[in-house]
């Protein structure tokens, strides 16, 4: 029955019908809640009652007048540092595993596997690794003869806890970054490398002058993922430390969740989320500005 329609008409129908479902899902589960979130941020809704009293900008004023709220970003900084380290390691492995190497697929799978695991399960697992008295990490350090280090309270020392947690993130997401880098490495035309080789370039020169510049857009993407990931950490400290010791590992999102669900202040929590959103956009803009200074095109 569609045979009689014109080709263009058929095309429109197909496009519309195929786009409807994903657009509907996107609208219902992304944009509708986002709009609601903006609305809630102007109310002091308690999370369950039918009334949602409008309070205007009071929530935003409260967030910006409470220095405590922004202080937790210091804790997120550790995740950013570890994220940068993670990207460097990922590039390193990507370069190595793109060369001819015996069993490289095996190693790729090995490094990628942690990413597939459930975040909460990973966090739970590392709870046993970092345990002070019975943990495997301290046991290993003790057996290596580092008895001074083997008493370390990995999750109980204020300056250390965020790095301990972030290193778990590194273990988990490094493989993911690596796979993206490998894909971009394979997209670099082989003949550039050959030409460089003929001209007598060493392997370090090839890396700095050819490989890295060609991967720039992908590095940018991964850095963006790292930054937003660092700003939005939640599951690791939530499962492992509950923000402890005494709030030293509390992250911004955890604070938002507590404000909403423990202290029944959905309005304030929504305002905090909106601010985080703008924060991410802001960081992204700065990053674009800095990385594109060299003139991309």
């Amino acid at each position, binding site marked *: 029955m569609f045979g009689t329609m014109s080709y263009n008409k058929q095309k429109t129908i*197909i496009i519309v019908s195929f786009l409807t479902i994903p657009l509907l899902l996107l609208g219902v589960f992304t944009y509708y809640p986002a709009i609601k979130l903006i609305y809630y941020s102007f109310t002091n809704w308690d999370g369950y009652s039918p009334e949602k009293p409008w309070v205007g900008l009071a929530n935003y004023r409260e967030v910006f007048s409470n220095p405590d709220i922004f202080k937790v970003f210091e804790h997120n900084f550790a995740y950013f540092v570890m994220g940068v380290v993670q990207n460097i390691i990922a590039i390193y492995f990507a370069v190595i595993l793109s060369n001819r190497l015996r069993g490289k697929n095996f190693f790729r799978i090995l490094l990628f596997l942690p990413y597939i695991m459930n975040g909460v399960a990973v966090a739970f697992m590392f709870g046993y690794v970092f345990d002070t008295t019975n943990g495997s990490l301290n046991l290993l350090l003790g057996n290596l003869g580092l008895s001074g280090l083997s008493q370390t*309270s*990995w999750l109980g020392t204020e300056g250390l806890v965020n790095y301990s947690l972030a290193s778990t993130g590194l273990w988990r997401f490094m493989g993911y970054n690596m796979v993206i880098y490998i894909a971009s490495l394979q997209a670099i035309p082989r003949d550039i490398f050959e030409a460089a080789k003929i001209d007598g370039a060493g392997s370090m020169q090839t890396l700095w002058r050819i490989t890295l510049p060609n991967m720039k857009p992908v590095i940018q993407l991964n850095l963006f993922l790292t930054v937003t990931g660092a700003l939005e950490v939640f599951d690791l400290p939530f499962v492992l*430390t*509950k923000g402890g010791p005494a709030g030293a590992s509390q992250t911004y999102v955890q604070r938002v969740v507590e404000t909403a669900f423990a*202290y029944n202040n959905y309005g304030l929590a929504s305002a905090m989320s909106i601010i985080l959103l703008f924060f991410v956009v802001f960081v992204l803009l700065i990053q674009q500005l800095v990385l594109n200074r060299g003139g991309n095109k």
Partner: protein
Amino acid sequence: MKKKLFSSGISMVMVMSMLLSGCGSDSSSGGDSAAKTDTNTSTKTTAKEGADISGKITFLTNRTDMIGKEYDDYLKRFHEKYPNIEVELEPSQTDYNQQAKVRMASQELPDVMFIPTIPNSDLPKYFAPLDDLGLNDRITFKDFKVADGKVYGITSGNSTSGIVYNKKAFADAGITAVPKTWDEFLAACEKLKQKGIVPLASNFKDKWPLNNWVYDLPRLIENNPSFPNDKLNTDTPFTMDNGYGKAMSLLRELNEKGYLEKDINSTNWEQSKKDIASGKFGMYFLGNWVINQVIGAGTTSDNVGFFPLPYDNSGTPSAALSPDFFYAVAKDSENVDAAKAFVKWMLEDSGYEDFAGFIPPLKDKESKLPQLKEFQSGGAKLQEGTVDDPVVTDISNKAQLDLPAVAQEFVLAPDPQKVLDKWNAAWAKARKEVKH
């Protein structure tokens, strides 16, 4: 060729949508037939007692571990008494309180549930009064979930808090009598420590195991059940010499003397139960609900003892009595009577409180737990708590005050007075904002 591809694509879409709509009509007809059988059973009235009440109710339970085990037995016995009531159990996700609130917001409450943390004035919006159950003279904490003079919630069981200890560990360390004063308690801790046993498992890291230190002890120390509500009248609720400061100082002292876990920031709740059971750890300061869990972790009931924490040197300790979750029946339930019958049965006949290790919710019932008998043999006075003042809760939420977290800070801080100052300031600010 291309044309064909497109038209076959369109027909695929058509087929898909037909399939989808087919599913829809299928399920609705299924619902119809279920409703039909329902009316059939309700028309067949039997002479048995309780048979006049019928209907299908759901119960949102936090004890997911009991589904398929104890609940099966409960429902079987319940069914003998009320053959026409069908009970469906809905296991809660990890956070009962949160899940219940989401259901409240969406107006889709299960028929029987526990009351989450909402102000009492909101109770009539969601729940049906339970005064007509005929239990009002027998229930404990009758005034706890009351709005406009009507009872909206009945406690499912009560707890007290105290020291749960491993009797063998105590005997090994040479402790012959249960400590009656704080000094004796410290001496007992020292003996356990000398034996290589961790005296008291605080589970400090997990925060909630500190609840009894900040919710029970302060009001006992002050000998004032409404002490937590008295915060309302002051800008400095936390001082070193009032209940809060004193209670948290006790915990701090235990930590300074090395009587808690070696690293209190790295504790493991599940493991600690096994360690108490095996005698590697000596004591818990928790509610009596933990007794059965310790026994379940691998020891016998006669190896677990329970006594009130002697928080001072007076020798006459008292202990706090606190309610657990409160049963409630949804106002908009289609089968309010059936739901009420179920609540009544759970309170009177189920035996849930003994399984869960609670002090019975009904005054005329006695606990079957030997540990609770031991606890009361010492002559401990049980202090019933009072309802939280909603204004105090409002101020606490506004100040983002979480007492167990304050206790954590207090114990870890180099200068605990600074922690109290910080929270006093937050309290004073929030109090001003909420009041006007």
